[in-house]
């Protein structure tokens, strides 16, 4: 099972490496979108520090959603997705492998870039650390939920926009706890409750989302 997971992940990473620019587009979007806010809102440090956790989290959310349709789209176009669905190997593991590859190509770069953007927003060091940790826990959740949405809207004309509408309400708890953790640290309180809940959300999503995405793939391909 682990062998299958790693094989699928390795394949998707290889394909992402062949189109490096496409894989880095979400990161580019994240940087540009987050960078627009200080320009639009004004450079006052106090305001920026207040809006920073929310802005960074929402931009990370949108960036993750942008690239998640690619998880299944290219395989769907050349027919290899149907082969994966028909194969005797468990589809849940294949989906989990694809999600892992997606997180490695778009989630990890977001987590690594977030501290730099945090500096642009004049956040305190402790807040930046908390924000990075919440994104580390949160970006897998976004990849997992995005996989469910991508599987449900596979091959539809308005698939990308529809997927946003479907998945974003589901990601709201992660958003609330992620930004709440940074808010707590800013106020001098402990972020433990928020981080625990975020971790619980991650575990719950890890257990449920690959199952739901696999079921959605079978629904979409029948």
């Amino acid at each position, binding site marked *: 099972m682990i062998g299958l997971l790693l094989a699928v992940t390795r394949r998707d990473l290889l394909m992402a490496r062949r189109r490096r620019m496409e894989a880095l587009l979400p990161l580019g979007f994240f940087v540009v979108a987050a960078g627009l806010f200080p320009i639009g809102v004004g450079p006052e440090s106090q305001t920026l520090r207040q809006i920073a956790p929310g802005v960074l989290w929402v931009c990370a959310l949108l960036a993750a959603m942008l690239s998640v349709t690619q998880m299944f789209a290219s395989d769907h176009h050349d027919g290899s997705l149907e082969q994966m669905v028909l194969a005797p190997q468990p589809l*849940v593991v294949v989906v989990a492998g694809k999600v892992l590859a997606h997180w490695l190509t778009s989630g990890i770069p977001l987590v690594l870039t977030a501290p730099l953007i945090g500096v642009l927003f004049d956040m305190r060091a402790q807040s930046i650390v908390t924000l990075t940790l919440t994104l580390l826990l949160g970006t897998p959740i976004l990849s997992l939920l995005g996989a*469910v949405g991508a599987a449900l809207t596979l091959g539809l004309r*308005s698939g990308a926009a529809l997927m946003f*509408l479907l998945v974003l309400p589901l990601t709201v708890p992660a958003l609330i706890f992620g930004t709440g953790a940074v808010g707590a640290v800013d106020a001098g309180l402990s972020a433990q409750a928020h981080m625990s809940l975020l971790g619980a959300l991650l575990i719950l999503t890890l257990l449920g989302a690959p199952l739901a995405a696999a079921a*959605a793939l079978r*629904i979409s391909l029948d």
Partner: protein
Amino acid sequence: MNLRPNTFAAPSRFYAMAGTLTPWFWAAALLFGLTGLYVGFAIAPTDFQQGDAYRIIFIHVPAAWMSMLIYLVLAFWAAWGWMLNARMASMYARALAPTGALFTFIALWTGALWGKPTWGTWWVWDARLTSEFILLLMYLGYIALTEAIDDPRRAANAGALLALVGVVNIPIIYFSVRWWNTLHQGATISMTAAPKMVSTMLTAMLLMTSASGPIVSRWCSPALGRSCSSRNPTTNGSRDWNVDPLARRRRYT
């Protein structure tokens, strides 16, 4: 007629039954509604703290209860249709969705109009209001997804999966006032303790809830229009449902 548990799984028979019951639902809704309004306005006294503004409760609470209940019923029947390949169940779920969305909208709208004079604000992002708003987005997402897919069976099954994933929101809405410090008041009615509300207000509220149940059923029955002709019950609808009689039960994971 021989009544079996699955008699009304045939769209033609369900449509006929719904047509027969519709005038009764109209009557029940009007009866309960008018009685509830009478008790609510003529008999229930003015509230000590909120004055007459509290009378919005006779719409707000039934609408909120309905919004949650309809979603649960929708998810149940959509899942039933998905698991048992039951066309009628999926049709019922799709018919319920717009009604549920409208009830959620009414709950949010009347809540805002009640909040302005009593809390001083139209809206606050506390747990209950946020999760009810998310419920509205979930209804809209379900409608959007089922409308976007052309194949009716794929649309119904995809919607069922989406509805099931979203069911987790309902307990969050319900228990939000207990789990978090919210501006929205806590539960005044429970199964175990005496209600903290004046009995006349309670009666009126329950009467209005009973009215909205038949209203929902009355609307949903005519909405199940697809291929529900009574002339040929065996073949109508199966053309677009693509039922393959030889398909085995499929594994989903």
